[in-house]
């Protein structure tokens, strides 16, 4: 792991160099919130953010993706032949991604890019993308990354990581991919005192993240014990069953596939984000719905994230503690509190 250094004044020029070779995504301020956007000019990148409103998952997994298309024109010799819609897999860099979000993509790989199954588009985009992270010097009060196996300086999912040291950015190169991309930049090695400063920032950042709940305590309990616990009645009451939490979440990966057809002309096969909060999500063709009740849907979201994923993969929760759902839920359903209840032997307080 080599350390380099970029003075703040040089940063825009560095982004420009990257932009000359890659499509570069970076946090950009849009109204009240930040979002990851493909940069048109280097100056638009703004690292003065805590985190983006939406997770960056759409870079690999767009909310609505045209997967295939087909002609329905009777006189077209290729009528009814389904073809893959052309997609752009040119090399890209995501600059400024937070460690939790990068870790989230690792968790999502279990679904989209495992030894057994490969989603071709997710896999190709992952392959062509280099993640240059940005450590969190001052995590938000809603962050709980350290409770869920990651942290404000966790490099697990990253190819390189920037640390804001005040006058500049220390840059740690983590993978070969990171090394190749950053090689073009001819950066200077970090001055001697930088490594110590980074360690200090890391320690103080990690200390500032509160413990939210204890995933092993949830893992150790019987799945059905939590499933049948009385806690869900109280947890689910306020929930609106909107899609806010799942759409913002970097580890919510569920989708629906639909055909959009223009009679006699053409059709598109779309992949669309879906949400376990929606009753349509589990609505069968027969009319039966195994999760017809709100309480079942709310339970599903938390059980999947905090229990089933742990049970199935043994690599911790399917939540990286980014806190987006905590901040954005309109009725203040707080996964930290739910995690505590799930891990507490299921006795409801008050």
């Amino acid at each position: 792991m080599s350390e380099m250094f970029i003075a703040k004044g040089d940063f825009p020029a560095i982004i420009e160099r990257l932009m000359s070779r890659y499509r570069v995504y970076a946090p950009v301020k849009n109204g009240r919130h930040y979002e990851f956007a493909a940069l048109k000019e280097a100056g638009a990148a703004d690292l003065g953010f805590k985190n983006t409103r939406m997770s960056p998952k759409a870079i690999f997994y767009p909310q609505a993706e045209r997967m295939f298309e087909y002609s329905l024109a009777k006189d077209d010799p290729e009528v009814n032949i389904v073809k893959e819609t052309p997609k752009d897999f040119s090399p890209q860099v995501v600059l400024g991604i937070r460690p939790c979000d990068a870790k989230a993509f690792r968790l999502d790989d279990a679904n989209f890019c495992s030894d057994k199954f490969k989603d071709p588009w997710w896999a190709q985009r992952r392959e062509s993308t280099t993640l240059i992270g940005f450590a969190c010097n001052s995590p938000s009060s809603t962050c709980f990354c350290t409770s869920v196996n990651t942290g404000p300086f966790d490099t697990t999912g990253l190819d390189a990581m920037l640390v804001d040291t005040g006058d500049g950015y220390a840059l740690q190169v983590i993978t070969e991919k990171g090394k190749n991309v950053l090689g073009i930049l001819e950066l200077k090695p970090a001055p001697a005192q930088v490594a110590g400063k980074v360690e200090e920032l890391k320690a103080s950042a990690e200390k500032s993240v509160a413990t939210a709940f204890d995933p092993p305590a949830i893992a150790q309990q019987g799945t059905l014990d939590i499933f049948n616990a009385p806690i869900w009645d109280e947890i689910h009451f306020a929930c609106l069953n909107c899609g806010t939490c799942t759409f913002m979440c970097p580890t919510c990966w569920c989708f629906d596939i639909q055909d959009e057809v223009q009679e006699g002309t053409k059709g598109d096969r779309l992949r669309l984000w879906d949400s376990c909060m929606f009753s349509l999500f589990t609505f069968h063709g027969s009319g039966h719905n195994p999760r017809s009740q709100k309480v079942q849907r709310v339970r599903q979201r938390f059980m999947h994230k905090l229990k089933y994923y742990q049970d199935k993969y043994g690599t911790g929760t399917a939540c990286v503690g980014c806190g987006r759902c905590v901040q954005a839920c309109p009725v203040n359903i707080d996964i930290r509190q739910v995690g505590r209840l799930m891990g507490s032997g299921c006795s409801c307080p008050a």
Partner: protein
Amino acid sequence: MQAYTEKIREAAKRLLAEKKVDGVIGFRKGTMPFMNEPFMAKTPEQADLLVWDGNCGINLANYLPKRTDKIAIVAKGCDSRNISIQILENQIKREQLHILGAPCKGMTDKRKIQDELDGKEILQAEEAGDKVKVSGRDFEKTFNRSEYLQENCAICIHRNPVISDEMLGEPVQEQQVERYEDIKQIEAMLPEEKRKHFDELIEPCIRCYACRSACPACYCPTCFVDESKPQWVGKTTDPTDTRTFHFLRAFHVAGRCSDCGACERSCPVGIKVREFTKKLEKEVKELYGYEAGMVQDLRPPLDVYRPDDPEPFL
């Protein structure tokens, strides 16, 4: 308004102990500044968790449709109007309800307060009367709540509940305000300006349906966006699909919307969805002289037919 907390708890304990109701729907203190969580107390002990302050902007009527038990519910002016609409529309029976009327001085808009803080994170918010003191790691600032109300609350003209079984406080003074300034500005636009305005308005929409799900008038067993046999509305975030969702929803709540603002408050990306619903509220008021839920047995104009209905748009 915080004084209501004690009264709500007292009423809840009494009603639960006397078994007059099975649950009391109110709010409990949230885990975040400026947030409370809708909550149903089912035992006198749980009644002590109930709270009231300027962060109760979610419309509790949303939790009533199709309930079969006996419920006490805290209702602001707007909630009470939606409750009366729900009663008219057979979603809940009047005799199932014990309404605790909460004369209202408006709900705080946390986004407006956050805008004043230059991106600093609010860690605590303490409300006392009209003041709210917010603090974070290295700052503290006090705001006059009345200057930072949700937009719908700032122009609300029905702050007192229209139906109740007991009141939590004296009626508050109703405001004399021009409700439709923003709508008139849009009405004055050229068609292409309007189109641009609305396209920009809904551009950030992620189709999460929080606006719909928070709305006490949106209780259809299957919402039109969830119709699948056949499907009515496309599910992408293309402008056409998103527009269809917003326009249809707005029409569906025309004459039934109380402008409670729950939709706008709930939107995770801060879209002013009330621009749609308010336009229709204005139309219904101008054409039919009707305001949702104000008169107990008067059905919303768009679900009745009268031979003398005005029809200047035909």
